């Protein structure tokens, strides 16, 4: 998923109007009224297309998919009867129905039993890819910042993986990862990359790192270019070696740019769908939460609603935590600023 990426950098800037500072030539009269009229269509549309469905999903998550017999009337209930927390218990506590109103732990192979594994797969992908992308992206950015001749060429090259749609990326890597494909030829191996667990997971990580590292590098490079050369010169004069200069100057100064990149990449990988869905179809331990929700859609919409609500809350909590952390680091006063 690349859709949040373009927003990543721009949010950094978008927070500027909120910063305290001299607000020159602001319009003063009738601002509130004009602002309301200008913002209202956006808010209304987002309310309709994002707000309403989310509230509806939360409501739906308390309804039942199964046609149970109502004990008081002896009649079949249509799906959609109020069922309380059953759907949540199904996913979180692994309770599957076993007839006669009893529940058992979900049998292996059912969608229900895949919940916790999909959570850990998703979190695993997130940690590994974001870590790799940040480290490799940092190396890319440092090198691009040092090279003056080839920079334009590198920037053009770097935008190509970013410009390729994820669906195409997935197909492209399927071909590269084929047992008879180019990668095995180059490495002299005979891996069936996508047909067992760890190779399949590595394949997804490699493809994702290929596609998004350049983007992170670009963001970090933007941060690097804001650092004055004088700081490095004076550090050199003071006898700081290259590593000390990197740790004491580069890292702290590039941290704001890095934080934005890391937060947006994290949220993006947490909801990752297209790459694993096309590359492995979610097979061999690569089912992410988003894939699980889509699979569940056709076998019970209300249960799927509970699952998508859990996903939403899960990602929202991580987002909130990261933004807090990030604010505290940047502004130095936790809970204020940065929004």
């Amino acid at each position, binding site marked *: 998923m690349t859709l949040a990426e373009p927003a990543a950098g721009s949010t950094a800037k978008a927070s*500027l109007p909120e910063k305290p500072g001299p607000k020159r030539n602001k319009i003063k009269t009738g601002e509130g009224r004009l602002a309301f009229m200008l913002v209202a269509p956006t808010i209304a549309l987002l309310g309709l297309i994002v707000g309403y*469905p989310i509230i509806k999903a939360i409501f739906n998550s308390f309804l039942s998919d199964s046609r149970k017999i109502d004990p008081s009337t002896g009649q079949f209930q249509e799906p959609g009867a109020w069922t309380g927390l059953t759907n949540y218990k199904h996913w979180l506590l692994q309770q599957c129905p076993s007839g006669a109103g009893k529940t058992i732990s979900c049998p292996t192979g059912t969608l229900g039993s895949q919940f916790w594994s999909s959570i850990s797969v998703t979190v695993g992908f997130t940690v590994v890819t974001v870590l790799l992308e940040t480290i490799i992206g940092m190396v890319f950015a440092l090198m691009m910042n040092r090279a003056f001749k080839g920079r334009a060429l590198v920037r053009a090259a770097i935008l190509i993986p*970013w410009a390729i749609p*994820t669906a195409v990326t997935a197909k492209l890597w399927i071909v590269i990862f084929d047992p008879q494909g180019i990668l095995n030829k180059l490495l002299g191996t005979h891996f069936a990359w996508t047909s067992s667990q760890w190779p399949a997971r590595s394949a997804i990580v490699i493809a994702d790192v290929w596609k998004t590292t350049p983007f992170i590098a670009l963001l970090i490079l933007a941060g690097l270019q804001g650092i004055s050369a004088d700081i490095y010169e004076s550090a050199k004069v003071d006898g700081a070696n290259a590593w000390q200069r990197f740790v004491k100057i580069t890292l702290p100064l590039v941290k704001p740019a890095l934080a934005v990149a890391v937060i947006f990449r994290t949220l993006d990988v947490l909801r990752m769908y297209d790459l694993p869905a096309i590359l492995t179809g979610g097979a061999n331990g690569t089912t992410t939460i988003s894939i699980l929700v889509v699979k569940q859609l056709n076998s019970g919409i209300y249960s799927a609603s509970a699952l998508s609500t859990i996903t939403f809350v899960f990602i929202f909590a991580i987002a909130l935590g990261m933004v807090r952390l990030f604010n505290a680091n940047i502004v130095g006063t936790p809970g204020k600023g940065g929004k």
Partner: protein
Amino acid sequence: MTAVAHGSTAVEAGTEAPTTAPKRRFSPGDIGTLAVIALIIFWCLAPFYWMAVLAFRDTAFTFDTTPWFNHLTLENFRYAFNTTDNKFGRSLFNSLLIGAVVTALAMTIGVFAGYAMARLSFRGKGLILAAILGASMFPGVAILTPLFQLFAGWGWLGTYPALILPQISFSLPLAVYTLTSFFSDMPWELEQAARVDGATPGQAFRLVIFPLAAPALFTTAILVFLASWNEFLLSSVLSNGNYKVEPSTVALAKFTAGPHVVPYTQTMAAGIVVTVPLVIVVLLFQRRIVSGLTAGGVKG
């Protein structure tokens, strides 16, 4: 934050000012840097190059790993566009149509909000900004489930509106954010001058700011269009298998070349068709796009 802003200006303006004074002509360190630069370029381009090689290669030689173009044929492209199996032309048209409508909608509505966010101070602005940011960060599956049910009830599954409307959820926040950052950087003194000369805020916007903002609008439109063109999750479910409306990403994901055939070369041909227009656009406007991505500075 400011580091991002400054940096982007440098990238955007393409100044490439040396951060360290190049005293020596050539050193082992330079060779190291060059080697890593070459590696980066190889890493970014090699898979794309391989896609192009296979797209033009005879299917019989799919697993031939000769690293340059050989066994050239256009058969793969003909196959991708043939109307009985893949109908790829139709899906390209759908992608264009959906992308155009989504971009037009998001830009038309987003431009007003972006202006207000960048220029006006009003109560609840922080909250609105957070809400828009939140809308762009939530997982697509969170709205997919209720929309699937809703559209199923309305008989909308597999129709254009079902593919276009949900994309507003990410394209509108993207447009508002990018425009807000672009607008914050514009020379608003000109607007004030117009206001002093007696123009209303509306006139100042239309006659002074809009012409100045055109490049920013254009860049934002490109980013929104790219996001729409890339979308897969919502489209794959809400198109409901109807090839008449599904976009090229969905069509590509279920690409076939007949039973028991591994359609690698044909898929790569289709991938090239989907990608090359984007790559051309991105390379043509790379400076603007990088500035839009990193901070949105329109200076220089």
